[in-house]
């Protein structure tokens, strides 16, 4: 039995952890930044409490580094609404999206990792 061919060029990294509560919440932005610098196509999706650093007034350096490296950063709109965060409250370079992006990526063969 052999595994299907996954794309090793495209990555979707899902961050669910609150950086103010988890000591390892830098892992995903740093991994994304490193992958992007190696020419990979990388997207971070923030979900659950992972959306908290998407707020413009709570912006964190590691996400900014990822954005500057060419990483696309998205935030789950449902998670934002659950926490009373309006789309207008988030960093302008982070886009609120539906969770469908995960299923789209998986169906497309994108390497998808949950943290």
């Amino acid at each position, binding site marked *: 039995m052999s*595994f*299907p061919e996954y794309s090793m060029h495209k990555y979707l990294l899902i961050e*669910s952890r609150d950086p103010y509560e988890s000591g390892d919440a830098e892992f995903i932005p740093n991994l994304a930044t490193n992958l992007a610098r190696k020419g990979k196509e990388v997207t971070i999706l923030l979900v659950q409490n992972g959306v908290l650093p998407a707020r413009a007034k709570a912006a964190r350096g590691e996400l900014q580094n990822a954005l500057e490296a060419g990483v696309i950063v998205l935030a789950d709109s449902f998670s934002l609404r659950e926490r009373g965060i309006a789309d207008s409250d988030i960093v302008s370079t982070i886009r609120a999206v539906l*969770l469908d992006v*995960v*299923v789209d990526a*998986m*169906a497309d063969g994108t390497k*998808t990792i*949950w943290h």
Partner: protein
Amino acid sequence: MTDTPTLTFAFMDPPFETGRTATFFRLLDICARRGYHIKVFAYEGAVALPFSQQKPHANAVHGRDASEENHPLPKDWIAALTEEAERNGGSLNWVNCGLCVDERGVNAAIDGVSRGSPADFWKLAAASTNSLVIPTR
């Protein structure tokens, strides 16, 4: 492999505990509405999600009976997702880790749930378009 995607999810969280459970079910819901073939390997506490003896309860603090409380039960969500996937031409195949079931005494599962081992997750993943492991912390 057919043109319809087959997606496998490994999940570990028990019912009623974490936000991951809601997000996991939201992902399954998207797949079911699209008529995808969904494979789930439930490990550790997640094997209690399809436990058939889950029961709704009243909320005396808020003065609501069981009907008014309308307590959500994951076993009903799984049954509904299975129906939704099949209505759209897809399927939901749920495999519970057998040892995890025995540890917790949650052998009674709703119809359609099978018993397996981590080796089944490997087989499911190998036969799928893609897989996502949602680990607990």
